[in-house]
């Protein structure tokens, strides 16, 4: 098959320009409504549960997982499905353990929850360090992925792609704040879900709309091995550790947690997780099917011929089924996806820098609204420029480990601190600070010493730390540190405030 991937594709440019035009118009509209910090960080708490659910799905479904899991299934078969499953299971956990307390206790960031009855300054500094670490590693993975994908799909130079993504995203976040970011996520989620559904329907028409027929074709063309579990889970401890990181890391991702403050109350927060789970579950159920279809219709040799990792399986399938225009559409959706995810990360980073560090540490909580918004916007620019520079700096690097690292840090640093501050009366300031720092830093160190980086990136023969994802060790360590340090530093003042925290946490009385 002759593919026009990587050449200048007018349909995809037109779709992309329409997307940019619509989202910039929304940004213009949002900018007029964005005056206070509540508007800037939390869209004035005016987002409905359903809208927030779609936006959460938009924040979470990245181009990497869309293109990556399609590619993995098309080349490796069943293993793509195991991977897809892991991406969903964090959402129910988020619902059961944190959704309502998070909404009731916080204002703009997860640090609000941890600092509720503990000492503001140390907690804010630790939370900002942990949060920024998570956001930076995630942004690196997204930006490098973005540059490579755009180069493959549009034929644009890598650096130009980085600068376009960075600048457009900055416009959304800088002028439109959370209102614009939310709508960018919603539009992107609809485009992505719609695009994949159309791909699924057209594709399945070749298989009588019967998955059994599709699996039969896969088995006949390749071998029955494609349908059976392969080499992904060779070491179960490794698989469980990765599973823990994916599941509980979600509960520590600042840009996801921040979305909970855009809805009016805990009931709406709950509703948004339900909708997010629905859309994300649907997405991860059909992505492997699209991958299998690509294997049969496009064939593995064509897919790996364009990109060894298989990332172009979905765009190639779209080209085969709907010609260049449809491929252009899917490519534009992937581009929009990257833009939206990076916008969410940048806004979360701005809130950590401006709300946690500037307002609550340097200004001790006292600053005018205008000043706070100004600092938030400056922080947005700082993080945005950092993202572009990191993207360019990491050009050509293998950053596949970055996503795993992001979830490992989030599961080991922010998550234990938030969870314990909600449920454990005797949790103390020193306990929380050491949990976040020890958890985050140990996750980073263990990943560097693990086979993922020590062997795959640094080309050493043997890894010092045996697991590919350290969460099972570093998260346990964080909880142990939290317990030991809290017991050693009793804090009667914080314990006394636990009662009023409980009233707000479980009943929502006094929630902002």
């Amino acid at each position, binding site marked *: 098959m002759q593919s026009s991937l990587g050449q200048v594709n007018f349909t995809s440019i037109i779709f992309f320009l329409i997307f940019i035009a619509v989202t910039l118009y929304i940004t213009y509209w949002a900018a007029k409504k964005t005056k206070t910090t509540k508007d800037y960080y939390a869209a004035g708490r005016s987002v409905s549960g359903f809208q927030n659910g779609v936006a959460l799905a938009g924040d979470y479904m990245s181009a990497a997982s869309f293109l990556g899991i399609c590619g993995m299934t098309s080349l490796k078969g069943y293993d793509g499905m*195991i991977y897809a499953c*892991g991406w969903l299971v964090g959402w129910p956990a988020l619902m059961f353990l944190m959704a309502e307390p998070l909404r009731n206790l916080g204002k703009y960031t997860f640090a609000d929850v941890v600092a509720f009855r503990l000492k503001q300054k140390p907690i804010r500094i630790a939370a900002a360090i942990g949060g920024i670490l998570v956001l930076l590693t995630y942004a690196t993975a997204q930006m490098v992925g973005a540059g490579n994908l755009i180069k493959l799909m549009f034929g644009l130079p890598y650096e130009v792609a980085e600068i376009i993504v960075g600048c457009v995203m900055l416009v959304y976040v800088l002028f439109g704040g959370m209102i614009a970011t939310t709508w960018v996520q919603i539009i992107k989620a609809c485009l992505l879900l719609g695009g994949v559904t159309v791909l699924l329907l057209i594709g399945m028409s070749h298989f009588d709309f019967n998955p059994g027929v599709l699996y039969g074709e896969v088995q006949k063309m390749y071998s029955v091995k494609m349908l059976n579990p392969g080499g992904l889970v060779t070491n179960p401890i490794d698989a469980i550790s990765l599973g823990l990181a994916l599941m509980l890391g979600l509960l520590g991702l600042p840009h996801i947690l921040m979305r909970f403050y855009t809805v009016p109350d805990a009931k709406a927060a709950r509703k948004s997780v339900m909708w997010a789970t629905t859309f994300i579950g649907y997405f991860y159920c059909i992505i492997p099917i699209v991958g299998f279809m690509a294997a049969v219709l496009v064939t593995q040799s064509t897919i790996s011929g364009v990109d060894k990792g298989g990332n172009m399986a979905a765009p190639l399938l779209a080209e085969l089924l709907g010609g260049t225009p449809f491929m252009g559409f899917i490519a534009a959706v992937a581009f929009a996806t990257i833009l939206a995810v990076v916008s969410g990360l940048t806004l979360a980073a701005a809130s950590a820098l401006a709300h946690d560090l500037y307002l609550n540490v340097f200004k001790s909580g006292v600053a005018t609204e205008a000043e706070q918004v100004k600092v938030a916007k400056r922080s947005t620019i700082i993080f945005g420029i950092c993202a572009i520079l990191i993207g360019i700096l990491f050009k050509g690097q293998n950053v596949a480990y970055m996503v795993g690292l992001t979830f490992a840090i989030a599961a080991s640093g922010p998550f234990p601190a938030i969870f314990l501050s909600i449920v454990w009366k005797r949790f103390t300031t020193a306990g929380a600070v050491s949990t976040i720092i020890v958890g985050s830093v140990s996750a980073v160190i263990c990943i560097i010493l693990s086979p993922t980086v020590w062997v795959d990136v640094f080309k050493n023969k043997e890894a010092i730390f045996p697991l590919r994802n350290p969460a099972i060790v570093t998260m346990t360590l964080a909880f142990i540190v939290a317990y030991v340090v809290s017991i050693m530093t009793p804090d009667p003042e914080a314990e006394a405030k636990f009662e009023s925290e409980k009233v707000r946490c479980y009943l929502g009385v006094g929630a902002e």
Partner: protein
Amino acid sequence: MGKTAHEIVTSDRFKALVRKKWNVSMILTALLFASYYGYILVVAYGKEFLSTKVGEFTNWGIILGVGCIVFAWILTAIYIVWANNVYDVEVDELKKSML
């Protein structure tokens, strides 16, 4: 007459509500863990079982993989039905007693 935060938190009703909430949350979380990590362990140790065909071409692996996602969704739905119909009602009544 309105009650203070202290009276609410120490009331049996509030304590029972919080206990009930965490019981429900923990049972659902345990089911989620059991299903997902159970699936991972079956993938690790039961490859032959997963390769067994159910239909002509579909095998247990595919069914369990999709089943894992569907089951997670069902657990989420159970929680929201419980929270809307039981938890919120209790919360409203407790809040009224505070006024």
